[in-house]
């Protein structure tokens, strides 16, 4: 039998605690990674990269970041767009100030800067809870975007108020700038997405993750059994903002190439990432990927059907898309409030027993 644990004997704790306990799961995960790294870059064209794969990977990183904060630590945030803007502007300032340093270092540094900003805005979470906190994070969203629009130092006094990514290379390949090939963009984002997903998975199943989940389930009880709420909440804000900052840096430097704070990182970005997390499933790394894939693919699919197939005007299609996404979100929440990750878990349960019902 294929999808079975039976006969797969674990002889150490290490084996027992692994992420993919079923052999088929494990091998298909390795196969998917191999295809993503070794096959896709050779076949990818700029349409697939720009419309589907690169935004999918970038939003998946952002969704993992928000999932750490909201799904694991239970702190709802509507400031994701603002924190992505911090990542983007940080990487821009670093790229233009230190052209000699490799871009990967800049992106990681941008993530660290965002983590510091995120901790700062996370401080009120020690006093404020629930919806009050969600609305309070909107302060971060609006204040940060306003700051990047109003202080010319952030966009290097450019006349248009935009930031534009200069060309930077890595091992002779252009990674940012207009000359970047589709496969270079894709590979850059893929490396970050895989590495960060690995980090997130291992953080959330270790001590830190358990502390976050204890705080999420009941913060007072967690405090009584010895979880320090200050360090748990602030570390959740820091790690989450680190991920979101890297997503923002990639979105600006690799994907968009040029950005303007209120347009690229507005409140709608925050909601989009939150939708990804909810539709994918709160508290699940796989769910973050699934939610990002769903909400990146849906508009592309709708546009193809409505505009290309049926020949409807673009503005009408855009409005219908808004309606359909809204209705689908409600539908998903009614049918499966725990998201795509729960559906996937149920499928796996069924597969293990198949063809027997119990």
């Amino acid at each position: 039998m294929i999808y079975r644990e039976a006969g797969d004997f674990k002889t150490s704790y290490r084996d027992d605690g692994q992420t993919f306990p079923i052999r088929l799961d494990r091998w298909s995960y390795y196969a998917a990674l191999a295809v993503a790294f070794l096959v896709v870059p050779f076949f990818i064209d700029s349409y697939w990269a720009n419309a589907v794969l690169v935004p999918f990977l970038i939003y998946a990183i952002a969704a993992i970041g928000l999932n750490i904060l909201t799904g694991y630590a239970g702190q709802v945030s509507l400031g994701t767009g603002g924190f992505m803007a911090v990542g983007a502007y940080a990487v821009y300032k670093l790229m233009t100030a230190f052209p000699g340093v490799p871009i990967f270092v800049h992106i990681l540094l941008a993530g660290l800067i965002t983590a510091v900003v995120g901790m700062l805005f996370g401080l009120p979470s020690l006093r404020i809870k629930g919806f009050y906190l969600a609305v309070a994070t909107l302060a971060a969203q609006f204040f940060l975007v306003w700051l990047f629009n109003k202080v010319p130092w952030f966009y290097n006094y450019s006349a248009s108020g935009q930031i534009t990514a200069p060309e930077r290379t890595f091992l002779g390949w252009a990674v940012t700038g207009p000359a970047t090939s589709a496969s270079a963009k894709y590979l850059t984002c893929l490396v970050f997405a895989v590495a960060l997903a690995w980090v997130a998975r291992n953080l959330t199943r270790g001590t830190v993750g358990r502390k976050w989940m204890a705080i999420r389930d009941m913060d007072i009880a967690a405090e009584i059994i010895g979880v320090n709420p200050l360090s748990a909440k602030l570390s959740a804000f820091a790690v989450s903002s680190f991920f979101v900052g890297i997503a923002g840096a990639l979105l600006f430097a690799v994907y968009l190439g040029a950005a303007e704070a209120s347009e690229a990182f507005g409140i709608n970005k925050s909601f989009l990432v939150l939708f990804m997390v909810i539709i994918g499933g709160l508290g699940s790394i796989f769910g973050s990927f699934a939610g990002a894939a769903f909400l990146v693919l849906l508009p592309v699919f709708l546009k193809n059907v409505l505009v290309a197939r049926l020949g409807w005007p673009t503005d009408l299609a855009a409005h219908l898309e808004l309606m359909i996404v809204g209705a689908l979100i409600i539908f998903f929440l009614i049918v499966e409030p725990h998201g795509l990750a729960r559906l996937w878990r149920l499928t796996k349960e069924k597969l293990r027993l198949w063809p027997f019902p119990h």
Partner: protein
Amino acid sequence: MEFLYASEVLVNGLMAGVMYALVALGFVLIYKASGVFNYAQGVMALFAAMTLVGIMEGRVPFAHLINALFGVHVSHFGWTVPAFFGIALTALIMVGLAIAVEKLVLKHLVGQEPIILFMATIGLAWFLEGLGDVMWGADVKVLDVGLPQGISDGIEAATNDWLGYGFFIDRLDIWATVIAAALVAGLVGFSQYTKQGRAMRAVADDHQAALSVGISLRFIWIMVWSIAGFVALVAGIMWGTKSGVQFSLSLIALKALPVLMLGGFTSIPGAIVGGLIIGMGEKLFEYFIGPMVGGATENWFAYVLALLFLVFRPQGLFGERIIERV
């Protein structure tokens, strides 16, 4: 002179605050009665205003969609509807919307976590925004239901005589204040002195206890959403007359959020006082500090004020005391 100008800013801020309070009121009503944090309140105001304009101008609903589907060119029926009938019809449509929301969304989400309900209302907001655009088109519309507009000459002349400096105050703002006050008085009267109002307060107090004494939860929900729809309609008329019916109208919902935080999610007086504080505060801040930091501080001032305030009083000014037990 400086002081007089600042006080003119202050008065205008208070009037803007009334408008914020109007939107915040709809939030509080729904939150109290059904525990739903209704993000769609702002979009409901936009949708109501769009529908009102569409009905008054005799536009064909879904004209754009019909044209795309059947290849025809329809846009207007060719009649115009008087403002009073338009408002009555729109109010009816908002009641229909309330029933649809209850039947299609809320009924299925009873007992879910608050965050799930909140997300559902964000989905609802997107849906309504798209629906409004598909039904009536996305162009900026002019709304005129006969409310007086423009600078009030009487007040300018009177203040000029008294103080030697004429206050510029929009007549629409004065009307908005009067109407908002009437609306609040009406709502308070309704919830205090009628049977349905009492039932509404009972539901707000305790769902299960209300159910056990024979109050229909579903009827109360439909009623509350209808009232919120009506409040949204009033807010939509005011904001639509002031700045045209367009997408940015739905963003006033975001402005109402800090008002709520300041006043407390569960308090009607809180919504009013919070609205006044925010309206006044952001205008004065923009006037005194704005020029130093490059202006447009109105975008974030309300949030930062509410954030700082909450750090010291986590339940807002008039909110219920938060008691936590393990």
